């Protein structure tokens, strides 16, 4: 048994080299900045001294995860037009953050969402409730990052099992976070954005120059109502059986949004199918589309690991400018991943028959090797570059999530609930222990999700954020009648409903898997039979935002009205701090103990 050598069998040195370099640079930056970040405040929000340009790059770097880098391309390839809602809403969700939340939240002067929750309602109890969702959303978000890691390592080392990649990458990042903290992460994240931008755009341009541009590649697909595709110069490979037909792929309401109705139709006798499809297919997929849009747009405005970065802006004006730049940086990025999906459909359709780590989620990594036949080593180099980008993607998002989840556990659970009188040195140790603990759980969860699509899982994390933190922030900032009980009821009910729906959907999908996961989750197979009878319930479970977000907001209003005597007494002052321009000098730091502790 010579395992190390067997692993290196079939490894392309260029691909390996580029990926290794990215990991090494990331680790080196982490360790280097670990030396300069000493105080607890440095760890939590980087001492609040980050410029707009750095901060915007860092937020974008943290935000562009494995879902954006690999998942969007994979989903555009597998589902076509409907998958475009993901990149569009990922980018445009920032507008909601900018319009309603970014400025006021920064003015309020709290470190994290739990800080805000406590300060706005003067309730330490509510902080404890709010902290839970940092962990809920965080774990849902880390699962797809772990799948990205497993897929990428399985691509670089063809002999490596999926779970080894997950464990390896998870361990490396966890140690990096435990030793570097957020100060390191800000610099690392900003650099990672530019690595990702380079890694997605350069291969796209080279590929398009060789095989034909974005528009000609789309033009090679037949649209509904056409007898021939407008472009015939693209040499397409024949589609495999599992691939969706051209007309379904290129048009709205395709395989992604009609999946539930199609499954229901297949359960019916053949003669009833056409009538059933005609009646239900389009209306249900319209519902699916709207629910998806609500989840992604509202969810972006409620992601804990993104919101925590707004506190690193010096003031509310900088917070707004940062958001604007983030939208530009990520908007430009999101034009590229769908191009991989489109070219992949035409030139690499064999991925449609792959499952798990060998499926469409790896299109970004594999597509560049197509030009190896013509240009030799250039294909390998480009594939190495996209692998480096993929590493940057899941490493940066995973470390960002780890920092905010660890922060919640160390800063809230340990520092405020368990040991309020702990010394700074003890808190630093708690931070490290918490990082290892959370990293371990994330890796364990990541090992189970190979059959699920990366992008879909990230969408679920957004749906949970949309039904919990978004209503909390939006309503607390703009409605002074909100009470703690109203906020807590709405956030808990909406958030837990979304969480339960997402978990059920995943368990049902895992039960369908033909590999080992199908055996583990076989007990949930009857769920799919139930959904085949009730496709509407399936859609409401798969995309819960359309009912959970109104439910959360509605409960907040009703319960707050019922308990209106408990509106905080100094609510006018709080509202003034949230909304008055900072030049009036009303700004006050809500959390003062940590600043004192950090020696400001």
């Amino acid at each position, binding site marked *: 048994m010579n395992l190390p050598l067997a692993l290196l069998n079939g490894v392309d040195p260029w691909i390996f080299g580029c990926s290794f370099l990215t990991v090494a640079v990331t680790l080196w930056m982490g360790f280097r900045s670990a030396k300069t970040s000493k105080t607890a405040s440095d760890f939590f929000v980087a001492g609040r001294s980050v410029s707009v340009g750095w901060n915007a790059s860092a937020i974008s770097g943290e935000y562009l995860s494995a879902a954006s880098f690999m998942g969007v391309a994979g989903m555009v390839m597998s589902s076509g*037009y409907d998958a*475009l*809602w993901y*990149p*569009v809403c990922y*980018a*445009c969700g920032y*507008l*909601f953050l*900018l*319009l*309603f939340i970014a*400025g006021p939240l920064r003015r309020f002067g709290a470190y994290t969402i739990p800080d805000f929750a406590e*300060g706005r309602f003067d309730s330490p109890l509510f902080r404890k409730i709010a902290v839970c969702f940092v962990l809920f959303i965080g774990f849902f978000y880390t699962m797809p990052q772990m799948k990205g890691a497993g897929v990428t390592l399985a691509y670089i080392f063809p002999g490596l099992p999926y779970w080894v990649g997950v464990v390896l990458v998870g361990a490396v990042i966890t140690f990096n976070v435990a030793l570097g903290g957020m100060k390191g992460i800000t610099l690392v994240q900003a650099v990672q954005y530019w690595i990702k931008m380079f890694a997605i755009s350069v291969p796209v341009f080279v590929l398009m120059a060789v095989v034909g*541009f*974005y*528009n*000609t590649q*789309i*033009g090679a697909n037949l*649209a*509904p*109502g*056409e007898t021939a595709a*407008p472009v015939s110069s693209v040499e397409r490979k024949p589609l495999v059986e599992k691939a969706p037909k051209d007309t379904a792929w*290129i*048009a*709205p*309401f395709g395989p992604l949004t009609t999946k539930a109705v199609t499954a229901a139709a297949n359960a019916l006798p053949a003669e009833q199918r056409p009538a059933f499809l005609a009646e239900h297919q389009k209306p249900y997929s*319209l519902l699916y589309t*709207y629910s998806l*849009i609500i989840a992604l*747009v509202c969810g972006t405005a409620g992601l804990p690991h993104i919101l925590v970065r707004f506190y690193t802006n010096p003031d509310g*004006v900088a917070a*707004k400018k940062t*958001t*604007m730049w983030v*939208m*530009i940086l990520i*908007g*430009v990025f*999101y*034009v590229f991943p*769908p191009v991989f999906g489109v070219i992949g459909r035409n030139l690499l359709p064999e991925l449609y028959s792959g499952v798990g780590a060998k499926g469409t989620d790896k299109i970004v990594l594999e597509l560049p090797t197509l030009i190896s036949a013509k240009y030799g080593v250039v294909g390998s180099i480009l594939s190495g570059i996209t692998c480096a980008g993929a590493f940057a993607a899941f490493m940066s998002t995973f470390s960002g999530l780890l920092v905010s989840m660890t922060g919640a556990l160390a800063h809230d659970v340990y520092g405020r609930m368990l040991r309020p009188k702990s010394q700074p040195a003890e808190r630093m140790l708690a931070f490290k222990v918490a990082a290892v603990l959370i990293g371990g759980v994330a890796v364990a969860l990541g090992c189970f999700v190979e059959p699920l699509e990366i992008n879909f899982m990230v969408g679920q994390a957004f749906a949970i954020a949309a039904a919990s933190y978004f209503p909390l922030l939006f309503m607390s900032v*703009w409605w002074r009648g909100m009470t703690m009980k109203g906020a807590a009821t709405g956030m808990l009910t909406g958030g837990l409903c979304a969480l339960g729906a997402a978990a059920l959907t995943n368990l049902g999908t895992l039960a369908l898997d033909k590999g080992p996961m199908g055996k583990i989750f076989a007990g949930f197979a009857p769920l799919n039979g139930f959904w085949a009878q009730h496709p509407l319930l399936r859609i409401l479970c798969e995309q819960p935002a359309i009912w959970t977000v109104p439910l959360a907001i509605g409960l907040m209003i009703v319960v707050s009205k019922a308990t209106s005597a408990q509106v905080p007494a*100094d609510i*006018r*002052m*709080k*509202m*003034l*701090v949230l*909304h*008055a*321009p900072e*030049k*009036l*000098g*009303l700004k006050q730091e*809500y959390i003062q103990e940590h600043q004192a502790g950090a020696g400001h």
Partner: protein
Amino acid sequence: MSSPTPAHDNVVHSEPFLRSLMRRQLSLSIACAATFLLALLGMPLLNYFAPAFMATRVAGFTLSWLILGILFFPFVWIISYVFIKRSLRLEEDEVNEARR
């Protein structure tokens, strides 16, 4: 929370000031959000009721692919640029009003 009230600017702490502050900022935000939502939520409706029109080819793209895959991003940048300009101007006005 203690209120660090300088004795001279009672305007800032008055109820009408807070009301006008929140109303002006919220109406700006809602106007921008409405423009955005009209386009975002209108797209699926166009796809639903005018599928043939949205499948029109524009340089190889279908119209709905071109809008969603490319044109939507600059559209949102424009909205956010306008919002930031106006909201900063609004803040200037509020500061002047309070200090008068």
